[in-house]
């Protein structure tokens, strides 16, 4: 199996996932079928990846296109697991659409099949490091939206109980993934650069993001108090997250970062 067979598997996976999402959005509850479709989509792309592996006679971790296959597999898988655990349909939709996007980029840019990775990125930690951040950032971004929604509800004098309760859960999950990202990054850095923590600007800002959400979590220990401040922290935490995500390239303190890509 090689890249010429790719389109069949890509279409099968994307199609099954989109069908499953449509069925789940429908008002009538359908059992078992969406489960089969969700898993079928993963299985299809896993079969292609295994086939590619056997054909190449090496693990497919070498090119950007191969990396995207793994993103698609793991993001969809984690999205499905979280969906079964937490019943968050938007999260399932987000992870499946991200997975489809990665599959689709491979389809649209066949010339990147050979586009290869620089030495420092050729590590088993690369894929898990990126995946947990994609998921963690998504949760935290949504939690900030919840924060804004809560502030709006408060402004309209409506109850924020349900919103902030949901936001709490989402922050816990997103925070856990952020922790994974930081720690995977540390373990990788040890292998690649000799030390697990060097206060690289991206590290510093990821740590700052982590600290701000840590503050939120502790602020919420006593649930009834300070709801408004909590909502503000949640909304503003997103600014720190954005600096970490995009803004880092423009900071004067970040000019020698290993994470600044040009």
């Amino acid at each position: 199996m090689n890249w010429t067979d790719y389109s069949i598997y890509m279409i099968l996976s994307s199609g099954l996932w989109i069908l499953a999402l449509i069925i789940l959005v429908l008002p009538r509850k359908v059992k078992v079928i969406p489960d089969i479709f969700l898993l079928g989509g993963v299985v299809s792309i896993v079969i292609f990846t295994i086939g590619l592996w056997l054909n190449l006679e090496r693990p497919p971790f070498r090119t950007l296109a191969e990396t995207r296959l793994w993103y698609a597999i793991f993001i969809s898988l984690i999205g499905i697991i979280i969906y079964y655990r937490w019943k968050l349909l938007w999260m399932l939709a987000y992870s499946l659409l991200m997975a489809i996007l990665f599959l689709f980029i491979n389809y649209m840019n066949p010339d990147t099949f050979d586009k290869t990775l620089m030495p420092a990125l050729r590590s088993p930690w690369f894929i898990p490091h990126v995946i947990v951040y994609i998921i963690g950032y998504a949760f935290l971004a949504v939690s900030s939206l919840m924060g804004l929604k809560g502030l709006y509800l408060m402004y309209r004098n409506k109850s924020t109980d349900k919103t902030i309760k949901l936001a709490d859960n989402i922050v816990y999950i997103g925070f856990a993934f952020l922790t994974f990202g930081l720690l995977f990054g540390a373990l990788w850095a040890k292998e690649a650069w000799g030390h697990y923590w060097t206060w690289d600007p991206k590290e510093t800002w990821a740590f700052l993001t982590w600290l701000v959400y840590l503050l939120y979590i502790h602020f919420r220990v006593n649930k009834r108090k300070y709801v408004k401040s909590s909502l503000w922290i949640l909304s503003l935490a997103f600014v720190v997250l954005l600096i970490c995500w995009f803004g880092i390239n423009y900071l004067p303190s970040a000019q020698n970062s290993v994470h600044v890509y040009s």
Partner: protein
Amino acid sequence: MRRRFWEYPWGYRESFTIGIVLLFLGFFIELVSPVDAIYLPRWPFNFILILVLIAYIYISYRMVKHPFMKWLSSVPAAISSISLFTILVLLLGFIPQTDESGGSLLVDLGLTHVTRSWPYILLSFYLLIILGYTTVRRSFPLNLKNFAFFLNHAGLWIVIVAASLGSSDLRRLNMTLQENQAVFRAYDGEGRAYQLPFAIKLLDFHIKEYPPSIGLVDKNTGQFAIDEMGQLIAVEKGLNTEFGQWEINIDEYYESGFPDSTGYTESERVGAPPVVHMRVRNTITDEIKAGWLTSGSFIVPNKFMHLSDRWAIAMRVPAPMEYSSEIRFFTSMKEYEDITIKVNKPAKINGWTLYQTGYDERMGKWSQVSIVEIVKDPWLPVVYVGIFMMLLGSLYLVWMGRTTKKTENELD
């Protein structure tokens, strides 16, 4: 009735007052202290300090029943320590960290070397004390929920302690190796030399490269115009492609070639760069050009082809895929062991870990120099224990979220 300031139980006012006093005390010591940067105690004193800290926290928590002890593991104390620590890290995130000494107020306040400054040390200590007492308080009774709490909090405590107090025992030294020369001297980040109890000889240095690529260069900027005129294209023999209005046909490709009287010939000489011969047709004017193209090397000049007033076609120096050093590690004059190190694949030997960090980039794949970093970090296993505790604790968070009762588990 409103509680008076400093009346127990302490809340946010008292907690933040203590934190802010510590922060300014730190700035004050930093200003008046003649020493620029702080160095923490080394083995075994750091180890003793850690044991004393753990014993002190545990015993004082169990023995002393005073509202102050309760405050030490309270939420306001945690919030104040995290907030003030966050402010310091924010400064660290905005102010470029340098080794400059003296001069500006930023330097004198320690803000250009935050992680070695007094405010940072004092606030870290504050954080560690609060985190320590919190961990001890929630360790009893040890059910599943408290266990996850313990993993997250104790894990973080262990990571901070081992990474900060252990950093004084960390040795990171650089060595520049020449092929076939034994070296037993290494240098730290500040350029101090160290005599090593072993010697290292570079047997061979290797670079694997990606195939070279060609693309259009904007003569005004000298840059490859990747966005405007399509991507860089990997070279292969027989390749047909288009850049803007130009159609390119590569009819010859040598992985390494050398100039001669007629053009270039295939050659295995040191410094022989990749070479292609190609035909270019201007699809608007139908004009055809043919010629050689090479990225060049340290002895062969690079060669490109002019297409118009603005555009030229050029070959980019091949990017390294992987580089590695074969190294002979001498533990004595006669005993040695051969190892290979690559980027992302360090090797451990005699308590040291050897990392491939660089080479002579001017010489590219013909470099006979390899730069390696040797690292000894005796506290690493302890840091890893903390990291894995936090990973396990986070798994619990993903699965349980913020739940207090079983019935609350499901979300809408």
